[in-house]
């Protein structure tokens, strides 16, 4: 009985790993590395790479700038409706990206919620690079904010109180105590959100379209190329795998949690 269970565990693990690894291996074996590099040099790929880098950078900066204070407030303040806010933050996580695209159109489109106001200001968002930025930010922000809330919640509140009694204003407590202590968790959440943003597809294609050099990001380029030139699609996919692997390695190698582990290793609290 015990041996049977061990065998079952081994087989299940092998199947799961093979299923996850095989497609990744396939991308690198299907086409010789030389051809992959050649495909990356093509205009379509270079344009898409530039659009992706630019829009992701802007979107990610905005997510960090607005998401960090928002996460701090949600994590440390007790206010009515906090549970609802927490749920709303996570809602985009469970939405299909296509729904996110439609929702953004319904907000910023010509006939959308803010359509008249934007029209009056002469601003048109759908099918521009700004639309890509909005789509990417919308889809990636829950990944960052959720991780940031958990990180801020884990900070020992007495440290924040101690800083106050030492004369620190709330802004200084945030900058000198909360941010350094949360750096590890914020970095991890930020990397995860960045990876998710770079891979954004559904919301972008609906809200921003797929115009080469303007709104065509790397995932959209894969979709555009997979019928026209499968090798290019493969090359971009390979590039993603490399980026993803680098992000994961960076996360594992960086000693994110050293403050926390040192602090927790000391005495257990008494009352």
């Amino acid at each position, binding site marked *: 009985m015990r041996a049977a269970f061990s065998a079952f565990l081994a087989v299940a693990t092998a199947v799961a790993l093979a299923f996850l690894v095989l497609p990744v291996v396939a991308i690198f074996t299907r086409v010789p590395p030389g051809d992959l590099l050649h495909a990356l040099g093509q205009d379509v790929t270079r344009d898409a790479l530039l659009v992706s880098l630019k829009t992701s950078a802007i979107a990610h900066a905005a997510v960090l700038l607005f998401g960090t204070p928002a996460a701090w407030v949600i994590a440390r303040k007790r206010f009515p409706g906090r549970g609802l806010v927490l749920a709303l933050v996570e809602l985009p996580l469970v939405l299909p990206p296509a729904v996110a695209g439609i929702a953004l159109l319904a907000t910023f489109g010509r006939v959308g919620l803010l359509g008249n106001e934007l029209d009056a200001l002469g601003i048109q968002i759908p099918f521009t690079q700004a639309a890509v930025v909005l789509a990417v930010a919308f889809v990636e922000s829950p990944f960052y904010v959720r991780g940031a809330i958990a990180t801020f919640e884990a900070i*020992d509140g*007495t*440290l924040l*109180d*101690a*800083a*106050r*009694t*030492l*004369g*620190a*204003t709330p802004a200084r407590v945030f900058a*000198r*105590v909360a941010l*350094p*202590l949360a750096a590890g968790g914020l970095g991890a959440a930020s990397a995860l959100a960045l990876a998710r943003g770079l891979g954004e597809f559904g919301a972008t294609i609906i809200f921003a379209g797929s115009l080469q050099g303007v709104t065509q990001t790397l995932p959209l380029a894969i979709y555009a190329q997979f019928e026209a030139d499968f090798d290019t699609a493969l090359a971009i996919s390979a590039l993603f795998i490399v980026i993803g692997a680098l992000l994961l390695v960076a996360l594992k190698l960086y000693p994110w949690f050293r*403050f*926390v582990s*040192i*602090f927790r*290793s*000391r*005495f257990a*609290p*008494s*009352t």
Partner: protein
Amino acid sequence: MVPLRLDFSLPLRTFDVELALDVEAETFALVGPSGSGKTSVLRAIAGLAKPARGLISLGECIWFDSERRVDVRPEDRFVGYVFQEYALFPHLTVEQNVTFGGGRADRLLWRLRIEHLAKAKPGELSGGERQRVAIARALARGPRVLLLDEPMAALDPHTRGSVRAELHDLLRELALPALLVTHDFEDAAALADRVGVLSDGKLRQVGTPADLLGSPADPFVARLAGANVLSGVAARTANGLTGVLLDAGPTIFAAEEGSGRTDVVVYPWDVSLAREAPDDSALNHVRDEIVSLTPLGNRARVRLKLLTAEVTTASLERLELQPGDQVVASFKATQARLLTRT
């Protein structure tokens, strides 16, 4: 020196902390079991918890006044707060911790004999060292009040004595109103000029440690001070003493007067032990069985079925006492204090 004046009511989950107390330039210890609201008092003084109503002031400075809607922010109160477990910033060095609120570290580090640790992180320090860093940090901004939350709790028993003596000297030297919170009456008696016993947010008794030991207001205070509290029924005896027939069986004689339901308070250090009832002046000899022996440095706590005695380990070895042994516990009638139930 202007006193710290406290007169406020702070609602907690199951009870309200209601406190009226003036603290001069002295060390005042709030003693109580865990959950009695001690820490909440410190938090209210520091501005980290907001009372429902009342007043908190230091001399002319009003920090909190519900009627005048004054509530000074924690960072503007100049309170030195030594937190329970010390709450040192784990990402900063000892020196950076101490200078976090401004000021210079070198003199304080020297005074607390931790200058060699200036570049160390809190995670590398022992409990005693962390306590010194926390005190140095609390003093660095020149506070006008010092608050200490269980400063001895995170220390191991054998460094406790020396740390207590040093903290005592430091508190005398500072001559600040210092409010210390502890669950340990011995710590309070060793460190404080006055002690207040807190239970469910209310002060049961305030006095010098000697006052509280000599005339505890009620059984709760007596127990907290470490006494045996034995209940029974008191009646006048023919020899002019009071006899208390304990619920547990034996009769105890006391010099104080009492009648009706009464608690007898006997301190463990007043109880002596012998194999056979000695022929001495003590009136109370209770035959009892040893339940357990707990060494406390050069003394030992001997728990009997009825009461607890504290004797030197030297006596313990001479008498070769073991758990399970039958002994006679003796104390004088003058050492049995009576608390008559009203």
